[in-house]
């Protein structure tokens, strides 16, 4: 490969765009790969429990598992609807 084509390839060839896009999406998908299968079900059940007490929609509950070193953090995020706050 000549120096010229090497430089051309490095700058903004479509192949280097492809590589960059792949690296980003694959690292994202790999990080999700190791999440346990029960997470979606856990989210459903937590949502069902909260819905018993306050009116809430699906998108207001998120469950995340993050691994850092040798520990894992289960993060549960519930966005309460405005009406609930007004009642208090």
């Amino acid at each position: 490969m000549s120096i010229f084509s090497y430089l051309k390839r490095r700058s903004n060839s479509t192949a280097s765009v492809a590589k960059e896009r792949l690296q980003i999406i694959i690292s994202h998908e790999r990080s999700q790969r190791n999440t346990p299968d029960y997470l979606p079900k856990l989210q459903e059940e937590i949502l069902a429990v909260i819905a018993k007490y306050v009116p809430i929609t699906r998108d207001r509950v998120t469950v995340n598992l993050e691994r850092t070193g040798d520990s894992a953090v289960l993060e549960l995020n519930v966005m309460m609807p405005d009406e609930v706050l007004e009642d208090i």
Partner: protein
Amino acid sequence: MAKIIVVTSGKGGVGKTTTSAAISSGLALQGHKTVVVDFDIGLRNLDIIMGCERRVVYDFINVINGEATLNQALIKDKRIPKLFILPASQTRDKDALNIEGVEKILNELSLEFDFIVCDSPAGIETGAMMAMYFADHAIIVTNPEVSSVRDSDRILGILASKTKRAVENNTPVQEHLLLTRYDPERVEKGEMLSVEDVKEILAIPLIGVIPESKSVLKASNTGTPVILDESSDAGIAYQDSIARFLGESRPMRFVNTERKSLLRRLFGKNREDVSA
């Protein structure tokens, strides 16, 4: 005990069946008794690539259901003495495959053969999961193209978590990257991902690079595994890949562009035959 090799990719049309035909033929040519099994239930095509489509009487599902014996369903290749084909069923639905049935047949084949090559269907449905479940080795067929590389990575994730070896905490399935439809000229122009790019992204050992070649279509037209075309670049690249699989180390061929003279550039025909 036979070694079980799954040829898989996730994405369709990347060359799984061509590769299954070539790899199984190559192993048999090297003296290993080999059977190649089509797992693409409902869309069988290995038979037509291998040139034995008119000799199919019984299939994989017939054997699972006890309607035929394995020996009735196995088709002996007419060109290569130690090669056999087990065709997929063309009619029934793919739920006809189940772990117990597949295991029973693989165990039976295992007694007689050195290698069992499983030709996986595209996707990640039952057929694909069954094809990889019992594998010792996986050949990941990948094109230097974004959707194929992404799907291959997805398949690597499944191999590492859903196969028998993964479930039982045994040594993992050995993964081998086979890059197909490679065009060094487009790579040099920056129009195609290079071998190094794909290796870096997928991070598994490379077993071979098969160049984009007219000989692949010519071989499938006549139902001849491309590896039997000893004058073709793709055939030679497959032979090299098998040698590497069997432990030999060979330099990669067809990954760099040939230096062409001005005349050949102007009047040259498309590369398909190489004088080896």
